């Protein structure tokens, strides 16, 4: 596996190159934060800026969410496995144009969430090691995770319906409606979001349990077949609600029912914007 330090060097080199030649207006990548364990998203606009880029195991951010903000500019984006899937999904949905992106692919495994100390792998999120689409690969390709990303659902799936209900009820009770999950997700770009609408008013503004349930269930549905398992929603949540579990479950359902995973091929259509005559009525049972 290419060492993170080497990836960092190559990232800086490539960014400087692209900016010097004027091939892109800016490079979205990672920069130094207040200490080594806390890098932050960083936009390099000049080759001097590019000197400040870093890459280490704490660079967990999905930069695709920033790419959506500059749809008309030609930009370079550093993308790990799940991040590249997010970019592909956004291209599928027409939010980004492939020609406007220079995707700096970073094969990475062993990323660490500084807050919890957990290593991201198939038991959590973002285990997808290799970028699916890229213009440049900044490291050697890695072997994909051995286990299914859905294995971690075993515990919840083993519970009874009542047991699962209790579980989710308890989790939703802690929700503060800070909407960090919504803001952290690259796919949540709707303006206005259904939660910001008063006609109809899907949920009250205050953090009631019923409102939280409506918000989360609806958001899970809106992300069905679009979630790329980057885990940002769960990492952003200040009260650690394991949102990724529900998103994973729906991703599994989409793969099983429709044979398609989110953000894998540029020419795909998102699962719920498409249909096959062969879908069959069994999926409704």
């Amino acid at each position, binding site marked *: 596996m290419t060492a993170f330090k080497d990836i960092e060097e190559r990232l800086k080199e490539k960014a400087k190159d692209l900016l010097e030649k004027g091939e892109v207006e800016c490079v979205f990548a990672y920069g130094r934060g207040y200490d080594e364990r806390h890098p932050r*998203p960083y936009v390099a606009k000049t080759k001097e800026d590019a000197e400040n880029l870093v890459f280490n195991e704490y660079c967990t951010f999905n930069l695709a969410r920033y790419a959506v903000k500059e749809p008309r500019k030609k930009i370079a984006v550093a993308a790990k496995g799940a991040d590249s899937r997010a970019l592909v999904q956004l291209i599928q949905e027409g939010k980004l144009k492939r020609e406007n992106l220079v995707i700096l692919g970073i094969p990475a495994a062993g990323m660490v969430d500084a807050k919890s100390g957990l290593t991201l792998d198939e038991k959590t999120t973002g285990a997808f090691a290799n970028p699916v689409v890229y213009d440049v690969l900044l490291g050697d390709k890695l072997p994909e995770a051995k286990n299914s990303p859905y294995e971690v659902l075993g515990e919840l799936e083993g519970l009874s319906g009542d047991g699962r209900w209790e579980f989710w009820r308890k989790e939703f009770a802690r929700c503060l409606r800070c909407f960090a999950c919504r803001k952290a997700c690259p796919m949540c770009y709707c303006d206005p979001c259904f939660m910001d609408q008063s006609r109809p008013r899907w949920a009250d503004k205050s953090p009631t349990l019923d409102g939280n349930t409506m918000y989360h269930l609806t958001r899970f549905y809106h992300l069905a077949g679009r979630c790329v398992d980057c885990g940002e929603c769960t990492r952003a949540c200040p009260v650690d609600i394991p949102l990724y579990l529900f998103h994973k479950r729906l991703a599994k359902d989409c793969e099983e029912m429709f044979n398609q995973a989110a953000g894998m091929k540029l020419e795909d259509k998102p699962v719920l914007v498409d249909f096959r005559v062969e879908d069959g009525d069994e999926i409704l049972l």
Partner: protein
Amino acid sequence: MLRKIEQGRFGELIEALLARGPLYAPVRDDRGVNFQLIRKASEPTLDFYNTLQSPKLAWFPQSEDLIRYRLAKGETKGEAISGPVAPTVVLGMRPWDVKSLAIMDLLFLGGGKEDPYWLEKRRLTTVIGYGLASEEEPDGADFFRTLNIGAADSDGSDVFLLKKDGDLLLEGITERGKGLLGELTFLKEGTEEDERYLVAAKAGGKDRKTRFFDLDANAAADKLKAVFADNTFWEKEAEGCISCGTCTFVCPTCHCFDIADETLFRDGVRRRFWDACMFTDFTLEASGHNPRPRTFQRLRQKICHKYSFYIEKFGVVSCVGCGRCTRLCPVNIDIFSLVARAVNL
């Protein structure tokens, strides 16, 4: 007035406090430590650096019901929901979190209008502050020293709690605090040595170093106003910000709230609940116009409010350096260094 109890008998102290009324204290679960309303004496812990969320929820709950009503054809009547506030104890607040209460008082009780909900809870809540022990290091994200708050300050607490060897020292600071300690007759008297320890710890608390940036609050306030219009600076600083509002919700001195009438069919409640200036629709007007549609504008407003406008209005910085905003920010934005950069521009 100094009392003490062995750390092993902490549960007894909690039992006694529980018998008096509602108690908020730090509780550890698999996510971390947070203030919760205690039900069992085994729940609270003193083994933590600081809680994930701030303790402001004891005085300013995230959701507070104000009026209940039923829509009617003629006149809709509402009745104020004001349960009697029971005398409450909040145990385990760090000195810098205790300071946030005084800062919030200026807003909720100053300006000629008193917020009755805040006032009532302040009147009836006893604060047991918890000083940082000399063996403990401040967290890398904290910066309370540069806001002139000591790691073992007892200002603002009714009772001040400090670990000493195998004991817990409890110092009665205010009349209310002394009264509380007087009721807990099973506590032992503190010795002269304990007294000296306490004095030394408080002095030592002022020698601790947190992240170094000499903030002259007034100078910073003026400088921030001067660079307010420098869009380039603010846009660069707001680059990573996703405008999620987490920093606001975990901050002990952030206090914006929204009030809404939430009706289902005919019955409803008027509630107030936390709002955040970082939210995109915070300034969305009924006309559809939004004066702060862009992230950098909202981030600028937040920084200037806390470090500039608040000083103008109330004479203090609206921040206690607890570091929660930095620790919990999903993209690791370091608000304090942002202020430093603005001042040094």
